[in-house]
């Protein structure tokens, strides 16, 4: 594979999990309560995939990887609403809860709280023969099946948010829940659905990450949940913007990854670059928005 093809394949592989999680975050931003727990939900998806997949096979693992974070996100929202707890704090607590609980369950199930390596759970690559086709080949083919699970989640979330009544209702629930109530719709139910969607898409990201490795690795999400939240903001809290911001960040991460092999710059410094560049982008973007407002 040429350098450019490698870069494209790496960017695409990084983009799908990130965009899936980011669109889930956007759904909750639409209803006015951004789900800060994406990081934990990605890990929940990855762990559920490995835990259930180890007993019932990889496809049962995929189903669990989507369902478990969706249920967790629903419970998270339910707790925040019923207990009138701060949704932001509840999300932060979930980010603490999931890795701790995963580690405890891992200890009980696999007798280790470290890496659980199960080669049988490494999802197969799809369409490897087509991966050599110019430009679109490395972008669309030759990835692990988990990549396509995440792609499905991206397509589903984008369709629901951009082209179905749910997206409009979610935005209405965020802007004026009382007006939505007067229109005969239940804003709380819509908020719940947005949370479930965020859990499902974040879970898909977790499945993609764990399925590519065929392993559970503590800290599997490696900050992707937070980066997804950044993408929501960087994208102006819009569907197209969030997808574009996810692409931007995935391209930066991919460049850093490829750069590690090409340059003699330390890996840690190259890995730090996407974060720094994104921070600069956030600050410059805010400054430009401020100028436009003025």
């Amino acid at each position, binding site marked *: 594979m040429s350098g450019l093809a490698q870069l494209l394949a790496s960017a695409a592989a990084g983009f799908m999990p990130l965009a899936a999680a980011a669109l889930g975050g956007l759904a909750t931003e639409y209803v006015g309560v951004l789900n800060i727990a994406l990081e934990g939900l990605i890990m929940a998806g990855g762990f559920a995939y490995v835990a259930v997949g180890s007993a019932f096979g990889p496809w049962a693992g995929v189903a669990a990887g989507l369902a478990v974070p969706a249920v967790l996100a629903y419970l998270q929202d339910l707790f925040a609403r019923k207990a009138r707890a701060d949704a932001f704090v509840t999300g932060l607590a979930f980010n603490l809860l999931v890795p701790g609980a995963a580690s405890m369950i891992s200890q009980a199930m696999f007798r280790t709280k470290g890496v659980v390596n199960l080669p049988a759970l490494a999802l197969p690559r799809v369409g490897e023969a087509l991966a050599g086709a110019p430009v679109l080949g490395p972008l669309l083919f030759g990835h692990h099946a988990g990549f396509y699970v995440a792609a499905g989640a991206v397509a589903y979330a984008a369709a629901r948010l951009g082209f179905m009544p749910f997206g409009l209702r979610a935005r209405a629930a965020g802007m004026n829940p009382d007006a939505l109530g007067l229109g005969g719709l239940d804003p709380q139910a819509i908020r719940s659905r947005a949370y479930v969607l965020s859990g499902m898409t974040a879970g898909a990201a977790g499945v993609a990450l764990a399925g590519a490795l065929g392993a559970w690795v503590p800290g599997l999400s490696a900050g992707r949940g937070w980066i997804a939240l950044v993408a929501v903001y960087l994208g102006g809290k819009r569907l197209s913007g969030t997808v574009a911001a996810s692409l931007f960040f995935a391209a930066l991460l991919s460049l850093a990854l490829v750069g590690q092999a090409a340059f003699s710059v330390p890996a840690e410094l190259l890995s730090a670059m996407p974060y720094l560049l*994104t921070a600069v982008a956030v*600050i410059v973007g805010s400054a430009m928005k401020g100028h436009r407002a003025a």
Partner: protein
Amino acid sequence: MSSLEPLAPAPPSRFVEPLRRLALSLGLASLLVGLFAAVASSDAAATLRAFYVSPFRSSVMMSAMAEAAAYLAVAALGVLVAYRSGHFSLGGEGQVYAGAVAAAFAGALAPSGPVGLLVALAFGALAGAAVGAPSALGRRFAGADVLLTSFLISQASILAADWLIAGPWRDPANNLVAMRAVPRASLLPRLAPPGPLTPAPIVAAALCAVAWFYFSKTRQGKALSLYGKNQLFAALMGYPVKAFSWLPILVGGVLHGLAGAFLALGSNGTAVRGISGGVGWSAIGVCLIAGNEPAALPFAALLFAWLDAGSRQAAIVSDLSPDAATVIKALVIMAATARPLLKRPKARGES
């Protein structure tokens, strides 16, 4: 509306809510410890002893707990200062790590002794501020979201610190991935050997007291809190809103950096890879449990330190995972913000 004021219930004391929150957190943590001992451990009695007896059995264990609480309290104060000004910073972990690395670096190079210690502490605090500075300046001059920029800069600084410790600043004579050891004379003095107790808990308590005084008793502290609640109103009142928009973020960085310096100059004696170990994240939980009240921070930090110490002991004497503490902390944080649990008793006539 003023005519209705005598009928309104007296507002609860400033300390009532944090106290109620702390009592609730302690009660819930104790309940969860019991539950975990019964469900997730094969030897419930040993697990309970590990939580309720072992951490208090010796002065060494108690002083270790006090030390851990000190780092947490100082870092949580950093969270609180930013939060009181309406900014939620997620950059604590990177600021603590940078503080530890800078303190270890300066401590190893500076003249050995109290001067070296002071220089190391100052470097630690400055490094924390340096990691917080881009977010502070981004907020001041571009109106950038502190939540986002603080997290991004923190992640980058963690990676850079990892590189420094494992690369150019690594001590080749050490089997651990660690920096050169700081001379003993430049470390925080041990107050009660062989225990690890240093002046850090005293400094932490003093800083919390100063913060309590600042926020409760000074005009500027009250103005800052008001700015955090309503920036427009604060501007209309003529408060120095430009300074409030960035200085607290920088002060938060200083405090996180200081917590990191305490970590490196305490029992560690240098900075090892991953030395911050989640202190920055736990500090957010400590701040929330303390209800953003500086006077309650040391007690909330002690609660977290106790859970950590207990779970470590439980992992040694029974088969309970040390991660039980993390799970309990998360559940306590969630419960601590649940309004029905915190609701104060209604006054007569209050609907």
